[in-house]
């Protein structure tokens, strides 16, 4: 009798210690913020393509409420859809680009990317003349002024591939290519496996390793479901050609800010569009053609340089602009004189 009682006590003590240890192990969960886990409605939210109109309206309202709560900003979140007869294409004039990285920062401001840690969609490589070998590029060039005479600059962002390796690998179809050629992500569907990030040959995808931080006054209140609404933690994001702007007839933020007019954007199905002319007349090329991704992002050099494969040192643009480490607003407006470099079309 005594024997069993003692062993019972011993066992209870062991069980209690065990439970206490488990509770201690789980204790960090107490720091889960309210709203960090989806509520029932959020949990049951359907895939973007399966939501009915009312469901989408409610989803957008939920996002607006979330943004207000997290950032103290009243945002307008819309769901802009692709238009018929539109296929967007980007063309970038490498003879013009001076590597000032203004596009990088305009993109961050427009698309509500996390500021800490900072997420950027565009990476500008400083390339030695005479090579397209990306491994020779410098990602972290840092001169007081750009451009540097011995280099040319190669901005890379999502190429909106027509044969995208990234969407193929996604186990839950959280990422797909829209009818107008833009590859998008449903941030509420992505499970964060990062397989697509490994699959992209242009290193165009970015992961939210933690909850994005954006100062209240920097939040862009004009948002859309598939593009620039603030992303939750633990999901993938990428360039969407600013679809909340471009699907409404505007231009992407990176193009608008470019001081030398190196960036051209438009509907390739429209025979009168500038990009269509460039594709027809210029000797355009794509990066990593051998990967057969069929990018919708083209590069070209101005005709007069085309024979040499790049601008000669003497023929480089003679202006220089401060690089991006210079405080904002101090940039001289030096772009006016470049209007005369016609497209030759």
């Amino acid at each position, binding site marked *: 009798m005594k024997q069993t009682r003692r062993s019972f006590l011993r066992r209870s003590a062991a069980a209690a210690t*065990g439970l206490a*240890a*488990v509770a*201690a*192990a*789980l*204790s*960090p*969960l107490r*720091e*889960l913020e309210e709203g960090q*886990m*989806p509520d029932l409605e959020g*949990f049951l939210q*359907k*895939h973007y393509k399966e939501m009915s109109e009312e469901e989408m309206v409610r989803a957008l309202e939920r996002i607006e409420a979330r943004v207000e709560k997290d950032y103290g900003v009243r945002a307008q979140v819309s769901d802009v859809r692709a238009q018929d007869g539109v296929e967007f294409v980007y063309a970038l004039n490498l003879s013009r680009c001076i590597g000032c990285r203004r596009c990088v920062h305009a993109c961050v401001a427009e698309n509500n990317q996390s500021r800490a*840690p900072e997420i950027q969609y565009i*990476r500008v*490589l400083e390339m030695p003349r005479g090579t397209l*070998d*990306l*491994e*020779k*590029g410098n*990602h972290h060039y840092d001169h007081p002024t750009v451009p540097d005479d011995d280099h040319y600059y190669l901005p890379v962002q999502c190429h909106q591939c027509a044969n995208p*390796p990234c969407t*193929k*690998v*996604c*186990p*839950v*179809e*959280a990422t797909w290519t829209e009818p107008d050629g833009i590859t998008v992500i449903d941030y509420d*569907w*992505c*499970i*964060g*496996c*990062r*397989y697509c*990030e*490994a*699959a*992209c*040959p*242009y*290193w165009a995808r*970015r*992961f*939210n*390793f*933690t*909850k994005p931080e954006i100062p209240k006054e920097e939040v862009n209140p004009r948002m859309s479901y598939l593009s620039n609404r603030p992303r*939750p*933690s*633990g999901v*993938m994001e990428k360039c969407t050609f600013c679809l909340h702007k471009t699907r409404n007839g505007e231009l992407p933020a990176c193009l608008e800010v470019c001081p030398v007019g190196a960036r051209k954007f438009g509907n390739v199905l429209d025979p009168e569009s500038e990009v269509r002319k460039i594709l027809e007349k210029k000797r355009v090329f794509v990066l*990593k053609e051998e*990967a057969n*991704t069929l990018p919708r992002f083209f590069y070209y050099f101005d005709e007069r340089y085309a024979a040499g494969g790049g601008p000669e040192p003497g023929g480089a643009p003679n202006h220089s602009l401060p690089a991006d480490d210079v405080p904002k607003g101090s940039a001289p407006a030096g772009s006016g004189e470049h209007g005369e470099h016609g497209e030759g079309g």
Partner: protein
Amino acid sequence: MQSHAPPSGPATSTRPAATPESTRERWAAGAKEYGVFLFRCFRLSFVGNRTYHLWMLGLTVVALLGLNAYCKQFVSGLVTTGMTDQVSWGMYIANFTFLVGMAAAAVMLVIPVYIYKSKELHDLVIFGELLAVSSIIMCLMFVTVDLGRPDRFHHLFLRFNWPISMLTWDVLVLNGYLLLNVHICGYLIFCAYQGRKPSRLFYIPFVFLAIFWAVSIHTVTAFLYSGLVARPFWNSAVVAPRFLASAFAAGPAFLILTVQVIRRATAYQVPKQALQTLRNVVTVALTIHLFLLGSELFTEFYTDSAHAASAKYLFFGLEGFYGLVPWIWTSIAMNLTAITLLYLPGRENVTRLNVACVLMILGIWIEKGMGLIVPGFVPTPLGEIVEYTPTLNETLVCLGIWAGGLLIYTILVRVTVPVLTGELRSDRNGIPEPK
């Protein structure tokens, strides 16, 4: 010492034919018996000597530390790991890959048993399959901790990108393999517990299915990497065969060690012959593995194309970054030492065999993580070099999962041994419950 009664041994079932039971009653009785069996196993898993208790306590503590670390990660996100946009997979996926390999160990033993009818390995198959079960459970845990949004796991059931995404194939084959192995060893052990001869119809077809299935879990996992055009380092046809070869070395090597622990700690006697067979398996597999590694290195370095950047980084360092160099050479040294030890004359030397096994397991583990997963990301597709160092929190999560897996494996082996030796028997046939 009484030798064990193998599950396929003479039938000891003495159910009296005079009491014909209806099918329903038989099922009910079977379910009850199964419940009793599980309960006994549960109780048994707490019974053991001092070493056993210390081992289990240690594993539990590490597992809880891992759980704690994972909770931190769950709250803050994957910033708690060393992964970045540049190196977007790390220790989690590396361990996952290694364990997929371990899980196939079972098959390497199934083949000699059922195809070449090698009797002495018969029970070893059960230990191998238990290892497979535990490894797959660990695999699933490693994939889960790697997800940014584990709370959305159910999306897999709602929109499953099959057959396009290789990851969906992996989900299917891994879970299928888990079920197959749970069925096979569960059935064999339960039959042994009941003291009756297992019906061949209920397990032989599954055993053969499992053989093909084991090859598939490797192949699919290898395709996960080799199918990516963005990663020239992985984009090679030899990745899948190399996976198979290294797994067939590491898995049985782990079993060699397990079997000796079982022999020391329990009454169960593994036949000497079994160790020798395992040893042969390991030797051949490791040889093939090293040969394939050599061919790959030749192709990478002799052609000396720009594609070799990752391999250069791995073996010699690139532009002042040398993070993986010590690891890979350690791994190669370990594997070469192991193979030398295996080929030296004197096959009876068990200590030497054990040393070779430990070296080989560590060597292959390093090679999967530091040698395969991480260099695939360095340099990035845009040529940037960012190195990866796992954080403490991430390491704790990994250790926690390993401890959890070993805990499961220990319990499984712990309850299986007395069943195989006949100490734990169903009392339905009049055999009293052992004290």
